[in-house]
């Protein structure tokens, strides 16, 4: 397969988003089916790219306009990007199906457009090989995310969106200052070229620049001081969008942060930036778990739980060891599956029973057995009970943390897990032993998706090795910068 085909991953959602106004002429339902069709096509392309990258073991490199990097902008679809672009596409498809039922607010054509742009932005952030291009895709993601957060047009939605805009605006300014510093010191924006030039940057500039870049990305990646927007946005956004935020928008930010961290690993003073990220990540876990404990709204509670898991991933990625990065990538996959399932099921309860307060979940086991079963499996998996998928990645993160000498961080995460178990078990108890009668017919399509995700969780829980080998390859793609540089066909400029 010619590597240039990978550019379809960007081109298809973009061109499809522009065709939405034409499709709107055929009626409101058509727009939703069109959304499903486009995400399905995207899944097919992403699947083909994934198979190609993993079969040949070679990354696919798209050079925009045929200009060789660092003069031209390149996309780098290596093992990690291929895997996550596929996850983005599959999750988008599931959420497009869920939108059929879950989104009734007008204007649906704008929703479809923003949905596609959000998918495009996350795909681009994962696939790009250029620092400024990363910024552009980050802004595409965040501007469509701002708009989707406010989509329900309630006061709460506007409030959440405004918080997100302000923090996102500060973050993107920091990111640009970081870009300015790094560009001023090296004269290049290409990531592979940066990796080559990293050892020659003045240590102070490298540290400050990298820290600013990470701070800018921390807004998207929901790391501690900059994640105040996340629970509000998760609660106020339409249900499918919440699942997308948690399943891949965060992951795109985390990946970009990890990629930039390891690109600069030869710069002097790298270790101190790494330590900063570990501290931010550990605080994220700790603060989010204790906030989750206090919630009365299940969607918000799961939002906090999602943030704490993200902190765990960031902790693993910032350990600076290969084992840590691999475990982090494995956790990213598991977290995407589990949180997509939980937000899907909770969102479905929200639209059927008219709210996601804890009292609505009372006796759900008798009212909507399939949904309650999915939430139960998702919760048990999120806590990290053996036989479920997150157990395997969590234990690998903990082992990697101890090996890297961060025993305090590991202790903090273990303590936080106990808190997590408390509120998830409280939810399960309310669902199965609370009062509540009246059986409700469950939607077939949503039930099928939920069951598929449940089976995936159990499958990874029982046979983790298939996914573990894949995430090992993806982790090496991030960690092994020497190979990354070798794979990008740099023109011999400046180096």
């Amino acid at each position, binding site marked *: 397969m010619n590597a240039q085909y990978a550019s379809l991953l960007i081109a298809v959602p973009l061109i499809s988003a522009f065709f939405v106004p034409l499709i709107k002429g055929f009626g409101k339902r058509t727009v939703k089916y069109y959304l499903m069709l486009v995400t399905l096509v995207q899944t097919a392309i992403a699947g083909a790219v994934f198979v190609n990258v993993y079969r040949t073991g070679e990354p696919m490199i798209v050079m925009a306009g045929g200009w060789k990097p660092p003069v031209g902008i390149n996309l780098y679809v290596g093992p990690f990007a291929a895997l996550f672009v596929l996850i983005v596409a599959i999750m988008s498809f599931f959420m497009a199906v869920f939108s059929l039922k879950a989104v009734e607010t007008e204007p649906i054509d704008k929703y479809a457009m923003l949905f596609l742009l959000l998918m495009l932005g996350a795909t681009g952030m994962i696939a790009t090989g250029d620092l*400024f291009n990363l*910024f*552009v895709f980050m*802004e595409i993601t965040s*501007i469509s995310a*701002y*708009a989707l957060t*406010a989509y329900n*047009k*309630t*006061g*709460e939605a*506007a*409030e*959440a*969106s*405004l918080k997100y*805009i*302000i923090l*996102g*605006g*500060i973050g*993107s*300014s920091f990111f*640009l*200052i970081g*870009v*300015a510093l790094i*560009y*001023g010191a090296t004269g290049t*924006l290409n990531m592979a070229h940066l990796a080559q030039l990293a050892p020659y940057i003045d240590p102070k500039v490298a540290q400050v620049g990298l820290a600013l870049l990470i701070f800018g990305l921390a807004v998207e990646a929901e790391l501690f001081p900059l994640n105040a927007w996340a*629970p*509000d946005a998760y*609660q*106020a956004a339409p249900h499918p969008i919440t699942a997308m935020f948690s399943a891949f928008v965060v992951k795109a930010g985390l990946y970009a942060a990890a990629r930039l961290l390891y690109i600069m690993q030869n710069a002097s003073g790298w270790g101190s930036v790494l330590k900063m990220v570990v501290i931010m990540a550990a605080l994220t876990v700790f603060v989010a778990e204790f*906030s989750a404990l*206090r*919630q009365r709204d299940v969607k*918000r509670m799961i939002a906090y739980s999602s943030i704490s898991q993200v902190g765990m991933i960031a902790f693993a990625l910032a350990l600076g060891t290969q084992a840590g990065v691999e475990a982090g990538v494995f956790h990213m996959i598991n977290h995407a599956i589990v949180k997509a399932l939980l937000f899907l099921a909770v969102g479905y309860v929200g639209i059927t029973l008219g709210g996601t307060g804890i009292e609505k979940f009372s006796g759900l086991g008798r009212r909507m057995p399939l949904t309650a079963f999915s939430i139960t499996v998702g919760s048990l998996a999120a806590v990290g009970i053996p036989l479920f998928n997150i157990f395997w990645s969590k234990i690998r993160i903990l082992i990697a943390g101890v090996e890297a000498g961060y025993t305090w961080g590991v202790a903090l995460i273990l303590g936080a897990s106990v808190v997590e178990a408390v509120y998830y078990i409280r939810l399960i108890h309310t669902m199965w032993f609370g009062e509540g009668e009246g059986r409700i017919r469950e939607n077939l399509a949503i039930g099928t998706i939920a069951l598929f995700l449940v089976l995936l969780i159990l499958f990874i829980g029982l046979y983790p090795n298939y996914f573990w080998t894949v995430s090992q390859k993806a982790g090496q793609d991030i960690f092994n910068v020497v190979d990354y540089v070798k794979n990008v066909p740099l023109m011999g400029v400046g180096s």
Partner: protein
Amino acid sequence: MNVPDISVYYFGAIALVLIGLYAVLVKKNVLKILIGLSIMETGVNLLLVSIGYISGKSAPILSEGITASNAVDPIPQALVLTAIVIGVATTAMALSVAIILYEKYGTLNVEEIRRLRG
């Protein structure tokens, strides 16, 4: 050692960023916060342009008498053009959200807009 001429731009840019950040963090009115964000963006753009500036050279537009040797670095200028467009989109988005907020809450004071918490 003399302070090079260029540093005035750096100081100006950083000052703008800090003024903007101050407005975002301290002001209570949503519109003032958004103005602060815009000022911050302007500061960042100025910083980017001044990083590519070489004293005494002209704009990187290919015309008579201008060659690659006497023009400034064009890349930061391209970046700034993109960043300005993105900034406009963000500001438009934020202002429309502010309009909805005013309709729903009847105020633009951030201390009174607090239904989501905890």
